[in-house]
């Protein structure tokens, strides 16, 4: 797995991780470390570009969830309560404010929807819209 890190300026600064290869138990640590490092360096909004992600395992999901928690817990003003999240999920309106996904393959999308990750992570197919959504 390789991660290409880009910095985009939308309404707010957005970091883009383009993940190439597999996100599994073998690569999740690297992904987490890079995300943690970027967070330390000031990253508050992350778009995961999944166009080149070939496989997402449960360990990869766990890593994405950790990054979700990192950005959710530590970002001021994003602290929506779980109840609010649940209501939002029920109403189909809740989406994470600081972590978004871009264009997963159909296999990866399948994993995201099976595990319910698509219920709290907004998934875009248009990069411009994805960046503008932060």
């Amino acid at each position, binding site marked *: 797995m390789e991660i290409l890190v880009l910095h985009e300026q939308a309404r707010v600064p957005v970091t883009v991780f383009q993940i190439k290869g597999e996100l599994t138990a073998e690569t999740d640590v690297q992904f987490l470390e890079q995300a943690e490092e970027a967070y330390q360096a000031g990253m508050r909004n992350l778009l995961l570009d999944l166009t080149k992600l070939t496989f997402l395992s449960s360990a990869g*999901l766990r890593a994405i969830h950790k990054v979700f928690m990192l950005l959710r817990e530590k970002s001021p003003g994003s602290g929506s309560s779980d109840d609010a999240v649940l209501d939002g999920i029920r109403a189909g309106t809740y989406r994470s404010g600081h972590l978004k996904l871009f264009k997963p393959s159909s296999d990866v999308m399948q994993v995201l929807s099976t595990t*319910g990750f698509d219920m709290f992570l907004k998934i875009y197919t248009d990069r411009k819209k994805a960046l503008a959504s932060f």
Partner: protein
Amino acid sequence: MSKHLPEMGVLAPIAVDGTLDPSLSTNDLVEHLSTLNQISQALNQAIDVQGVLDDALGRLVKLMGLETGWIILKDPQAEERFGESRYLLAAHHNLPPALAPDKPDAWGGSCACQELIEAGRPTKAYNEVYCSRLKRARGSRRGLVVHASAPLRSGDQMLGMLNVAAPDWESFSPQALSLLTNVGSQMGIALERARLFDVLKQQRWQEQEALLSLSRRLLSHLDLDDLISHMVEDVRYLLSADACALLLPAEEPGFLEFSATTGWHRDPVQDKRKVPADGSNGPGRAMQSRDLLLVPDIREHDTRAWMPDWLQAEGFVGYAVVPLLLDGRPVGVLLLNQREPRSPRDGEVRFLQLMAGQAAMAIEKSRLHEEEVKMQALEKDLALGQQIQLSLLPKSRPSAPGWEFAAFYQAAREVGGDFYDFIELPGEPRRLGMVIADVVGKGVAAALFMARGSTIIHTAALANQNPRDTLSQANSLILQHQNSELFVTAFYAVLDTNSGVLEYSSAGHNPPLWHRSDTGQCHELRVPGIVLGIFQQVALENHQVTIAPGDYLVLYTDGVTEAMNADRAFFDQKRLEATIAANAGGTAQQVLEAIVERVRVFAGDIPPSDDITLMVVRRCPEGV
């Protein structure tokens, strides 16, 4: 008795500096020089000088126009052993029968030339001696009466004498005598070099043997404490130190602690002594510089040096600190102390360094061994964990008329994160709960979570009417007990074994496959739902289907579909469906075994990276 012949005058030494008599013809000169050159080359190159002495002597005698010569050398051990000097016949050329080497009367006892040596008198380049040996020897002397003697010496020390014999003084030409002095001094140098070499060789041999036996002893100790206590004893003994200590990094960072000692009045190990691992003291400095530190007499050094009372009380004046280096990394230091000032000899320093390398390796080996023992203990724990885990899985399959149940579980490691359960639910009609789950996360944490998760779901299943509520409650209970490091995907279904109605809910788990006998195809039991353990509240759903006779339900974890082969391809859902379809008609157990076998064959030698869990439920066809 022969005597030195002062009245005849010891002939003035000639050619002491090696210059030759100008009266020599050019041819003589060339021959002279080339022979001398050959002799000195042979002497210089020889390691076994004794071996070339014979040859050099032979050439010399011939060149001098004589017939007989011999070399006597001081026996280096005689003085120690017998309290007096003794001489050995080291080389001889063409001795007359009277002086045959095996004749005790010829070679026993002293000789005028030996007395000269003892008296320290043969300081001249050469000396002419009436040979007492020849005089007293019985048998043919071939007319030999006198010999010219060149001392063999190393600096001030007499090593022996080079003698060439003749019937009278006239037989020694000035050129011959100059040759004699030259060769004599060459031989002296060569002998000394050989002696030094032998000493060195001997030292090295002793050193190597000590090292060898030390390393053999060190490597035979697997217990670290045992090893280091023997090490300090050995080092102290081998280097005749008054005290020796081994210091290893303390748990408290920045300190070295005494780990083994010998020869100390008060044991710093018992007193749990530590020294700062910095430049304030010898061990700290050696650790930092990774270099040997020698202080033969501490009193000659800065007295303000770090010297606490307990160290002063030992009365050490000299010390050596050797860092134990492993791949250049200091793993500890050896401290040798003397209560009298003493500078270590060259060989000792080298020995110390070699020994330090051995000690570092032995310590590392012992550490590794201890880690291995710990690992074995951990493995035992894991094996126990596995037993506990397996005990949490149902021991028997439920039995219900018209239904078959089969289940398979295989952990990828000693402990896994998957679990499944059959839960007999209270009340009528007869209802059976079935759960399959996968804790996302690996290792012991996931396994512990699995143990708790399975209990929680089991408890929730008994307390709730429908699968959605069961999983929702399980989620709340899971979150009460843990942070969000781990989460669980779970599928839970309640089967009415009378009607075949299956009510189910999923929390992010792969949809089970429902193989219908009427269509001959697999359908996914897909329900939206988020994994358990992330949010306090989860939005889950209840779905319902009716299982018809001849249908199969296959519940599985991603270890099945994500089983990988050597080409890094996944077993995937299509192969799973095909296997079910191909085995439709078989019992639940047969279908299960077929799937397990297909996955096994598919993966080949590639070890599974995830747990594999399978549950197969079959509603038997009517009349079966």
